């Protein structure tokens, strides 16, 4: 196997893969890394996620890398001006095979934010709820923001992981 043959192909569009209406939304991606063996890919991905996340957010369980993510959902106004609607927590599992890896994002929970008496945004923890399409029927705009910003986040993560894997590949070639 040579690293020069590494071609990263992403199979997928982000697929909301929720089979039933009682589960939270779920996303799954399979990323093809042609020519990269499992153990190399695994070590590259571990290196990558340790660069991207705080170690408290990471758990390595046998063959699986598990990441706890929280992102702010923003009500956009103009350009980079907006206000936080809340925080979205979810889990990403990354599983590796020869020449490909897969990640699944699941267990999406949304906690709204509100201004406190000092006009600072704070979480309304007692209002945390799972992101289930059925439950957000009356809040379609919020659900759209949650799904769009989750997808953008996962796209960015996908690109970051690809970049990191390529960097690792280049390092090894130089050596």
């Amino acid at each position, binding site marked *: 196997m040579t690293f020069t043959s590494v071609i990263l192909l992403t199979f997928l569009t982000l697929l909301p893969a929720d089979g039933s209406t009682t589960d939270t939304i779920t996303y799954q991606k399979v990323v093809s890394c042609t020519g990269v063996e499992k153990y190399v890919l695994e070590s590259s991905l571990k290196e990558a996620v340790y660069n991207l996340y705080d170690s408290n957010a990471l758990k390595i369980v046998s063959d699986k890398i598990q990441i706890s993510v929280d992102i*702010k959902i*923003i*009500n956009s*106004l103009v350009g*980079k*001006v*907006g*206000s*936080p609607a809340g925080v979205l927590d979810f889990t990403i599992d990354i599983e590796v095979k020869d020449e490909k890896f897969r990640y699944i994002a699941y267990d999406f929970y949304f906690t709204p934010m*509100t*201004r406190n*008496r*000092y*006009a*600072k*945004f704070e979480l309304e*923890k*007692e209002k*945390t709820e799972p992101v289930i399409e059925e439950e957000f029927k*009356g*809040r379609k705009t919020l659900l759209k923001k949650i799904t769009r910003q989750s997808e953008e986040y996962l796209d960015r993560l996908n690109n970051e992981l690809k970049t990191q894997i390529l960097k690792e590949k280049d390092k090894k070639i130089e050596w």
Partner: protein
Amino acid sequence: MKKYYLLLLMATFLICTTLKAQDDEIEEATPLSISGSVDTYYKYDFSGNPNIPTSFASDQNSFSIGMVNLIASQQVGKASFVGDISFGPRGQSQSIPNSGADNNSFHIQNLYVAYQLSDMVTVSGGYMGTFVGYEVISPTGNFNYSTSYLFTSGPFQNAGLKFDFALSEKFGLMVGVFNDWNEYTDMTSSKDIGLQLSYSPSAGYDLYFNLITGEQSGTEFDITAGLQFTDNFYLGVNAATYGANEEPKLLNTAEDTGFYGLALYPQLKISDVTSLGLRFEHFVQRDAIDDISVDAFTFSANIGSGNLKFIPELRYDTASEDVFIDSHNEFTGGAFQLVAAAVYSF
């Protein structure tokens, strides 16, 4: 007292000078946030007189405005700021001082910076909404549109320097030194001391014990609680006592000045778009000769699930003395009013 203020300021300076320069740290910037609200109302007191001296919603038989509130804030790494400006009666003369060079309001509700010194300690400095009491100036933060006597009688803002300590997941402590209440510029040499102990045994249950005291400002003890018993039933509680001595002293215990009172705020969510709430308040204005008490019953609905909230409200106040005016312009012990308000938040 002066030496204690100096010690506190010196301690702050020493802590701040030991901070690493922000440029050395990896910072996560959140976007600049702009949010706020507008509110408008109609009030009708059935006697034809304005009567109930609520802080806002004061104009009789008038389609009136509250305020336009614009709040900018941002957090970059451990540093953050809030700039909160307001225009309109609610956001100017009814809630902030007129102390500019031309005796105009500066329109500032909150203007402060904060820095997270550690996971446990945050320091904030500037002009801040008060930590005392249950209700707030912003119409988005209250269930009822008219306000309680306890809210009107307590502080609105405290300018100063405060430290928030997250003692544990359940307990928090705030210690601060402040100007006299509701002052952009402190005209006296004395300062107020503020303390807040918070306890959150579980999500939806919050208790706050507050103290603000100063030689010139007087002393207020305040207890505030928010209790989310079920998804649909919530109870808010506020109790306070305030006194001020003729002779300035740090802890005021006068029994013939000030006020005390209790307010309960049961609220019931009856659908995704409608909640009903009652505010019962017993308020006593202390007096050297005879105290005056008022019992106020305010029934409000909050209708709307998105940015726009409609608040129809009926309120009946009954006092121990004839302090209101009836439809024949005679003094009477009770007043009955209707308010219809709309609040849009963004």
